[in-house]
């Protein structure tokens, strides 16, 4: 089991993800530089947090054209598990693998704090070890995490059970309290909170561990 961790210029959570996967879960990992096109031997892909390409223009707007993401798109279309955390979620929406967009926090502040969340796993592969309606805590750290889509789109997402993570106390003004979304097949998850920062009791709980461990099962 090898997890590929995409590294863009400006990614800054790539090593945190590696620490969580290798140090806490004894998984092997491989960094995938943004120019790489070969995902051979990779069983799951993580798009980590950070500021890909400086977040110029819009968060994720430039990253979307990275060569590695063509391979990631094929991988996701083939049913491979793909996880986008924070900036990774923004990249997934810019790519069109998930609908909507992430915009400036309602109160403009960069938010770095624990966030209580409600999990509705549905068919999402990354959340299969969580109970329906389970309450967990994961840290958030973002300036542009306000999920935005139109009312019809939100209703459709709700109806299809794709809003799999919801804020308990909406910190950023996201429509529908959306903190995380999955695709129709359930193999792609994008979320603003950072599960890799909640994998060791010494650093703020272990609620994120089961999410990352789900690729093992």
């Amino acid at each position: 089991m090898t997890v590929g961790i995409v590294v863009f210029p400006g990614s800054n959570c790539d090593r945190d993800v590696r620490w969580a996967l290798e140090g806490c879960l004894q998984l092997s990992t491989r960094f995938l530089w943004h120019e790489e096109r070969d995902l051979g031997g990779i069983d799951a892909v993580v798009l980590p947090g950070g500021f890909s390409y400086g977040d110029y223009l819009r968060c994720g707007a430039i990253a979307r054209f990275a060569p590695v993401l063509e391979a990631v798109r094929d991988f996701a279309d083939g049913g491979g598990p793909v996880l986008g955390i924070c900036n990774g979620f923004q990249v997934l929406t810019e790519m069109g693998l998930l609908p909507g967009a992430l915009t400036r926090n309602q109160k403009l502040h960069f938010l770095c704090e624990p966030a209580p969340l409600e999990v509705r796993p549905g068919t999402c592969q990354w959340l299969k070890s969580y109970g329906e309606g389970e309450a967990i805590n994961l840290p958030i750290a973002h300036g542009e995490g306000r999920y935005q889509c139109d009312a019809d789109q939100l209703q459709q997402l709700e109806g299809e059970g794709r809003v799999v993570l919801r804020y308990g106390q909406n910190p950023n003004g996201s429509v529908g309290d959306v903190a995380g979304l999955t695709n129709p097949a359930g193999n792609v998850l994008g979320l603003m909170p950072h599960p890799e920062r909640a994998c060791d009791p010494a650093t703020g709980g272990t609620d994120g561990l089961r999410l990352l461990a789900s690729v093992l099962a």
Partner: protein
Amino acid sequence: MVHPGGSRGAWTLGLPRFNKPLAAQVPLFSAHVQVSLRSSVLDPAGEATRAAAARLGVDGIKTLRIGKSIHLELEAPDRATAQAQIELLSDRLLANPVIEDWSLELAETHGGPQA
């Protein structure tokens, strides 16, 4: 090595531009793309700026929305091609149609005869 011709055009291998009369005839278009948040999307930065305007003593501002203004120059064989290229650029890269609208002003600055 720095291109002696200044800002426009990359340094290319081969003969300089004055030895390539055909290349010199490609028309140059100047475009201005205005990207703005769709009216249904909250603009917290605009709201904060509106509040600051009131503190400055400028009252009566009813709406204030912040967008992006992008100026570019493009070589293209004719106006229709330039228009199509910049529309593609605006729709796929400069703006995110999920949250943003864009508008385009296009003008030919100099170059060969207009098609």
